[in-house]
């Protein structure tokens, strides 16, 4: 049967396109700032938000947006205060988010950890028309903000001190990035799942780095890789009946593998000297 004939598949595919665009577009700045795992930290905190939604009887997507944004802003403020290193602050988010989520879902009437499962790994049938409205609004908002502030964000992520000397509003831009990361996580939550959101923010960027050497070029290639992985993952999970998030991430990783192989061959040919030029080890930290 043609999957496009099904209402829930059309909604899931639309969400996939948006997620495939937004996640790498925001992720590239996190990777540039060497905060590749920030999406993961926010994802864990968003789980608390989802559970809070169940507890309060409101739409989990909305509570997740709010809690994730608050968590991201707190992380950024902690980082700016400079007393706690970024990775320790992230670790605190991981633990607090998961523990808070499981705790709150236990308190919710009739709530079990099974309620959280579709949020953790994504689900094709989970995307309701209401979700799509939220997802579309947030995606367009994030993409517009990137269009307006993208060059400023690049300057801040590249060299924060120099950006400050130029008079850029560095604190505000960092907070904007944190909030956009939180919105991205909640946008991607229904399709990819909270545990795998961050992969779609990081892996396409790593893929692009295997092939190109500028920031702008990295963004373009990463968006293509992101959309390709998200759309084919959603379609594929319809046929093989699996959680879409897992398949999307496996496909994204496969793209990375192909790009790494192609990149290695291409780089070896023209100028041997530049073979070690493109850094690859980014997600590891």
């Amino acid at each position, binding site marked *: 049967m043609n999957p496009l004939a099904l209402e829930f598949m059309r909604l899931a595919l639309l969400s996939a396109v948006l997620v495939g665009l937004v996640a790498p577009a925001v992720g*590239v700045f996190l*990777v*540039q*700032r*060497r905060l*590749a795992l920030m999406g993961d930290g926010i994802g864990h905190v968003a789980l608390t938000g989802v559970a809070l939604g169940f507890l309060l009887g409101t739409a989990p997507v909305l509570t997740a947006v709010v809690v994730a944004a608050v968590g991201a802003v707190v992380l950024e403020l902690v980082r700016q205060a400079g007393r706690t290193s970024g990775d320790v602050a992230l670790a605190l988010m991981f633990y607090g988010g998961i523990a808070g989520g499981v705790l709150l879902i236990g308190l919710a009437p009739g709530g079990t950890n099974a309620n959280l499962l579709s949020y953790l790994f994504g689900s094709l049938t989970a995307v309701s028309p209401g979700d799509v409205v939220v997802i579309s609004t947030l995606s367009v908002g994030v993409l517009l903000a990137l269009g*307006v*502030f993208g*060059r*400023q964000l*690049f*300057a801040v*992520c*590249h*060299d924060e*001190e*120099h*950006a*400050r*000397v*130029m*008079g*850029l509003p560095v604190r505000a831009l960092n907070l904007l990035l944190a909030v956009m990361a939180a919105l991205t996580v909640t946008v991607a939550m229904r399709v990819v799942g909270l545990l795998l959101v961050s992969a779609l923010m990081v892996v396409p*960027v790593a893929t692009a*780095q295997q092939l190109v*050497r*500028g*920031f*702008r070029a*990295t963004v373009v290639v990463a968006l293509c890789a992101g959309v390709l992985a998200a759309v084919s993952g959603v379609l594929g999970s319809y046929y093989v009946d699996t959680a879409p998030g897992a398949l999307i991430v496996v496909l994204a990783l496969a793209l990375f593998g192909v790009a790494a192989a192609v990149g290695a061959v291409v780089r070896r040919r023209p100028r041997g000297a*530049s073979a070690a*030029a*493109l*850094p690859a080890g*980014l997600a590891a930290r």
Partner: protein
Amino acid sequence: MSPVVALRGASVAYDGQPAVEDVDLVVDRGEVVAVLGANGSGKSTVVRAVVGLLPLVTGSLELFGTPRAHFREWTRLGYVPQRAGATTGVPATVREVVATGRLARTGLRRSGPADRRAVQAAIEAVGLADRARDSVGTLSGGQQQRVLIARALTCEPDLLVLDEPTAGVDLVSQSALATTLDGLVRRGTTVVLVAHELGPLHHLITRALTMADGRVLHDGPPPALDHLHVHDPEHAHPVHEVRDTTSPAWGLR
């Protein structure tokens, strides 16, 4: 006319530990002031305070006659930090990095032809035109230093603050930097630069501030050449002779 930089009685501390104390640095328009001193003597701390990256514990700072707290004319200020651009997680091309220096001028508006020309001119001024599309991470340390110099030049500042612009830069490129600065100074740019050895920059310097242990030891005419330089006499005035033998690219057009 008010001085370009007026740092008076300045003390700066890191985590409550004073790093420099009671420093006066007053620079008039068109001056080229060198800040000299041993490692850890407080040179970077002083210039970082001048560009507003470090708060003053005591003392005052005015830029172009405006108290630092009210200063908003960011395009008039160019800064080259000491470390050659620490690499970031995503590679960026020379042109992309240099173009960020233009943001002080463009703000949120799209960059136009004039902005692109300024970026190109700055890249040519540091002799990196043939590397403009390469990733900064693939350049040598000295070349990366030149990228940061170009980034500061793109917004066509009236005050250029350079923290060890010649560290790790070969003599040919130092001479080229001297030529570039010479052209800027002729057009009225004021320069404050940190250096260990003045080398080819020596003839540009109008005044030298020597620091020791966080205090100003000496403020006056630059020390005589033979005190500064360990190279053989052939290199005492290398600017002109070296320039002839180099590629014409690195130098102001």
